[in-house]
């Protein structure tokens, strides 16, 4: 098999995702302007349009401060955009809901709950029986490698451990759409690889839709159907790239697949080409 050419420059707003599935998330000409303390307007997102099909794994790449988190907040319904609309399953997003589960960059664990309490929180909220919720929580804690730390409070965990608890907490209540903001950013390579595989497994099994912010091009290519490249001029979408690699993916196999390497190199080159990523100095 030869190298499939990458089709860059796909129009933003064109459906993403595998096969003929319906768009589950539609972002339509969304802009976000913040008022700063110094009373100036700061544009975090300008005129973003994007649609994500059901069951798609979409990664968002972009320089620091380009508005990735803000975009996730809008899809999550946590902030309402200054202009434009975001829709989920055809309905305008007016607030957060258990159908969209966020994993925040800052973790936002509940400090008054132990690891177990944090992870059980969502299932209990969804009306699961305590016994069942605990079993589920323990399984997820085991998955993220924190068995033995169930009784620890967040303040007693290391950075990477907190991040894993945040991940487990969101996975625990099984949202349809996962909104993950650098969920593996604070992890060492091994834990990271391991959790990538686990995430893919869950995704393949439960047919979830995932919006995944990351800084690792390699991670984005490995995991995604589509990679959205954002740029800071300010906060807009530069390219949307289809990742046409076979599933299920195994890293050992992919590493030998020249298409995989080409995707990575091409995306990196695309970032290189844009002066946008150069730090002003």
């Amino acid at each position, binding site marked *: 098999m030869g190298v499939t050419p990458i089709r860059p420059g796909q129009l933003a707003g064109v459906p993403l995702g595998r096969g003929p599935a319906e768009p589950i998330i539609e972002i339509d000409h969304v802009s976000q302007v913040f008022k700063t303390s110094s009373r100036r307007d700061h544009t975090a997102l300008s005129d973003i349009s994007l649609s994500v099909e059901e069951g798609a794994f979409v990664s968002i790449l972009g320089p620091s401060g380009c508005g990735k988190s803000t975009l996730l907040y809008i899809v999550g319904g946590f902030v309402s955009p200054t202009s434009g609309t975001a829709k989920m399953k055809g309905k305008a997003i007016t607030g957060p809901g258990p159908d969209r589960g966020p994993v925040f960059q800052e973790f*936002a*664990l*509940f400090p*008054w709950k132990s690891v177990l309490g944090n992870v059980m929180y969502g299932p209990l909220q969804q009306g699961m029986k305590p016994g069942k919720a605990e079993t589920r929580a323990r399984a997820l804690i085991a998955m993220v490698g924190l068995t033995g730390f169930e009784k620890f409070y967040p303040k007693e965990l290391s950075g990477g451990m907190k991040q894993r608890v945040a991940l487990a*907490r969101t996975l625990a209540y099984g949202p349809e759409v996962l909104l993950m903001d650098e969920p593996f950013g604070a992890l060492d390579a091994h834990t990271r690889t391991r959790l990538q595989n686990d995430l893919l497994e869950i995704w393949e099994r439960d047919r979830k839709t995932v919006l995944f912010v990351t800084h690792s091009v390699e991670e984005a290519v490995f995991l995604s159907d589509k990679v959205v490249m954002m740029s800071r001029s300010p906060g807009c979408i530069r390219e949307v790239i289809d990742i046409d690699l076979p599933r299920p993916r195994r890293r050992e196999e992919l590493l030998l697949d020249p298409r995989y390497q080409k995707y990575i190199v091409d995306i990196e080159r695309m970032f290189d080409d844009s002066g946008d990523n150069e730090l002003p100095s």
Partner: protein
Amino acid sequence: MKGLLKPLAPVLACCGLLLAWQLASLGLKNDSFPTALESLRAVPPILSDKDALINILASLRRMAIGFALALAFSIPLGLLMGRSRSTAAFCNPLLMLIYPVPKAALMPIIMLWLGVGDISKTLVIFLGVSLPVIYHSFEGAKAVEEKMLWSGAAMGLSAGERLLRIVLPAALPEILTGCRTGLVLALITMVTSEMIARQSGAGNILFNALDMGQYDTVFAMIIIIGAMGICLDAVFEVIRGWLVRWSEPQFDMPLSFS
């Protein structure tokens, strides 16, 4: 040595306080400022008097009721104000208009509707306690990290549930600070609410003694109230420590750079 010093510190401080008082009163030679020893000597007669004990218990009962009512009312209100700008905008001016008014001045009107009995006094205690609890809950709720609330909302918690299950625990350390100040004010208002009209109570003993110029009894009562303060405070600290053990600083070194 160090291990011994810690539990003894409060005792030492009390002794120091009494000593300072003793010296000051000896130096001033003033009838209305008896020495610490004279006042201490007046404590046992009060405590062995059945009437006095009944009086003190009556005060404590009123205080407990006022305190509990105030918590039940103020914490939800404060949290609501902290999370909703419009509630805060609605309540703030009104509260700020009401609280500075001295309750003693309103006594005639309070008496008109509520009589001179327990209800009026409990109301005064209620007002005294609710002030700090409302404002600490308010500020505590305001400072709750937003993403925590977002996490809750994403798990399907309604606004009310978020208030109860996220804002309340997250703001708990701050709320408890308010409660502690409230507890102090409860003791104070418990006594002062009996200043004008009284049937029984600790304030009853104290203000009678004051009227009669029985200063050793006055100061003995002050000692007793102070001791009650210490006890209540100690109980409160235990409860607080248990409730917010998750928020205690992890390392105890950095703040102790003396």
